[in-house]
């Protein structure tokens, strides 16, 4: 028993007003499904049922697209950029005002620590709306062409790892550019999107500009296939991303895809070692490793590999795994049983392949979905755990001798979302950044996001960028309308 035990410090759930069931948010109001069904959203930390949520039918998707189209042809399409911006400012402000509510709800539904939803997810989501509010009436400055215009109706499907933040990344630029939206949150994390619908109402956003349609794979497919949707934006697995790319082939429907990754976090022998260890930890254990750009491969220079291994394991033993609502929790619950099974299977494969497995000792709650932070050493490129995205708190450690070797190993993957470089030598940082085939390079830091900073991948990590001036490109067109 440690000398300094932290007593439980639970964030109160009382701030959230959970309804027993939720309909769909179409045309500015909550409405019952036409022909769809219901499913339950549970807390992955306790397996308790949080609420019943609608599984939207094709008819529901059709209604939502029609509402979005009417809004685009009507009030929203006629509105000046400055006025669109004002609605986005209102939304940003309300997110700030209701920040605690959103943070607690996100933690309940997703399983991530309250510390993260409170300090990262919700503030960044509000910041995205603030940033894009300012672009709405300045598009002519964004080097998007002489007369950038919105596409029309945008269909957006988002994942379960950062539910509210991914919603902000999708909706804010879409609306800033003048589009209207039909968005489907992930089936395991619909609740903050449904609360966001309330924010739209509080902001008096014209009906149909934002439509939230909950459901699972079939609902997502209905959105992808709908002929009334002009553009798609998807964040999720590479597998589904490829399906979408196939679905739209031969059509004029545009898409941006933000998919998986297997990022290399590269530590050189002259790195600021204590901060590098923090970077490793942030890279793969932040958000339980449910991060597309997670630093899931540690590439450590061989001469310091033992020292880094020792420091890393010592640091991991201070990580606190447990109740996501406890303010001192560092690592929360795995989002679903299915995801837990996948992580379990892949880590078993890692052991079978001959890598050495290690986890710090920590007690896990009896209910809920949990996985201890895990480190595999003695990993080589051909191991499944070095190639496949695990999407969990599992780190694979490989070594290298020279910068060229690090680059070769880092790039030797179909993915290309992000990479980390740790060295005190500036010229090496810039050289490495040039060589790495990744959309985001973090030098002496990791997992940093900002609404002004474009994010997206190379190769099978997807195409298109979100955030910054570059992120606006996907949401406007300079082509004539047919």
């Amino acid at each position, binding site marked *: 028993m440690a000398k300094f035990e932290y007593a439980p410090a639970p964030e109160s759930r009382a701030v959230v007003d959970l309804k027993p069931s939720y309909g769909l948010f179409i045309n500015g109001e909550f409405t019952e499904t036409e022909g769809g069904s219901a499913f339950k959203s549970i807390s992955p930390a306790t397996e308790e049922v949080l609420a019943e949520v609608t599984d939207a039918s094709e008819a529901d998707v059709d209604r939502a697209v029609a509402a979005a189209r009417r809004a685009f042809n009507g009030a929203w399409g006629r509105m000046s950029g400055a006025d669109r911006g004002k609605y986005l*400012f209102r939304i940003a402000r309300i997110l700030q005002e209701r920040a605690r509510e959103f943070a607690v709800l996100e933690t309940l539904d997703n399983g991530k620590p309250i510390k993260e939803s409170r300090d990262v997810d919700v503030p960044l989501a509000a910041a995205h709306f*603030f940033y894009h509010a*300012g672009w709405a009436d*300045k598009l002519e400055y964004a080097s998007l062409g002489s007369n950038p215009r919105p596409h029309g109706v945008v269909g957006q499907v988002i994942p379960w790892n950062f539910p509210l933040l991914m919603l902000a990344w999708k909706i804010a630029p879409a609306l800033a550019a003048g589009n209207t939206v039909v968005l489907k949150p992930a089936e395991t994390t619909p609740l903050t999107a449904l609360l966001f619908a309330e924010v739209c109402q509080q902001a008096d956003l014209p009906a149909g500009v934002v439509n939230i349609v909950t459901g699972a794979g079939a609902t997502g497919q209905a959105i992808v296939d709908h002929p009334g949707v002009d553009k798609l934006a998807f964040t999720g697995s590479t597998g589904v991303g490829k399906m979408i790319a196939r679905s739209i082939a031969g059509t004029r429907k545009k898409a941006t895809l933000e998919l998986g990754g297997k990022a290399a976090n590269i530590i050189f022998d002259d790195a600021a070692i204590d901060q590098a260890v923090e970077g490793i930890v942030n890279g793969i254990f932040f958000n339980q490793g449910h991060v597309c750009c997670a630093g899931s491969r540690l590439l450590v220079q061989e001469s310091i590999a033992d020292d880094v291994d020792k420091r890393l394991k010592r640091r991991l033993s201070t990580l606190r795994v447990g109740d996501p609502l406890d303010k001192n929790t560092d690592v929360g619950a795995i989002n679903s049983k299915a995801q837990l099974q996948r992580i379990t299977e892949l880590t078993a494969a890692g052991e079978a392949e001959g890598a050495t497995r290690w986890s710090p000792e920590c007690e896990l709650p009896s209910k809920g979905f949990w996985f201890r932070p895990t480190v595999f050493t003695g990993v080589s490129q051909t191991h499944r755990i070095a190639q496949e995205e695990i999407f969990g708190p599992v780190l694979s450690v490989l070594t290298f001798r020279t910068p060229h070797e690090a680059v070769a190993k880092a790039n030797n993957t179909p993915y290309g979302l992000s990479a980390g470089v740790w060295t005190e030598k500036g*010229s*090496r940082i810039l*050289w490495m950044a040039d060589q790495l085939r990744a959309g985001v390079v973090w030098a002496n830091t990791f997992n940093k996001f900002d609404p*002004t900073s474009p994010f997206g991948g190379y190769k099978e990590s997807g195409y298109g960028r979100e955030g*910054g*001036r570059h992120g606006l490109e996907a949401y406007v067109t300079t082509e004539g309308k047919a």
Partner: protein
Amino acid sequence: MSPATTQNQRTPAADTRVDVRKTYKLYIGGKFPRSESGRSYEVTDAKGRFLANAAQGSRKDARDAVVAARGAVAGWAGATAYNRGQVLYRVAEVMEGRRAQFVAEVRASEGVTERQAESLVSQAIDRWVWYAGWSDKYAQVLGGLNPVAGPYFDISAPEPTGVVAVLAPQASSLLGLVSVVAPVIVSGNTAVVLTSELRPLPAITLSEALATSDVPGGVVNLITGRTAEVAPWLASHRDVNAIDLAGAAGAADVVWGDLELAAAENLKRVLRPAGTSADAVEPDWTRTPDLSRLTAFLETKTVWHPKGR
């Protein structure tokens, strides 16, 4: 509170409340001092009727304002763009809350109708919002990577120039004022503003909005008074980095060329007033601006770094 309604009432009628009238002071370093000279001057409405006594700022007030503005540069320029944008957006929120006061003062100062005053105030608030939204974007539009012919990372980025003296427009007492102040401070500069000589009241109310909006003291300093008296001291001040001469247009006894001459002593960046040759005119502030008022007060810094293993 409408100053115009109390004009000819020396004796209050039985059912009229005796109002508490506002004192108009300077805004320097986040505080509201009177002029160190102790002087004031009469401000009248468009029809010549008395509105208020405004502080008559002196060269020493301007000197103190520059000290305050310089002291505020490090913190304001060092804040994140996001933070500056939030603060500026908050100013717009507070202005919106004080609409009625601004409308009354603009109406009285400029002699426009109620409807026109409403429109001008709305535009002023919207103008402020427009500039607030630029804080975290202009660097992306104005800066960028330079593809030099060698193994170097080479980037150019805009930076604020420092302390900017601003002669606010003489005629457009709120919209024009906002249009010259917001672009200066959104990028991290601080401002010493000489308000419209004859129409200073909306400016002081604006300073109240600034003081209650998390704008750090010294970022904006407002001096009311005679433009011809104070402007030359700002134009020649060697700790002022740039000067906006918009308010030379229509100002009594002001020759903007002389001010530019004085500014040349320390090579201030000079934004000349609108107009042709020696004439200075006030432009149409209702037109949506471009980036020129931003870029006028930005320096460009270029950084090189080799790329090598």
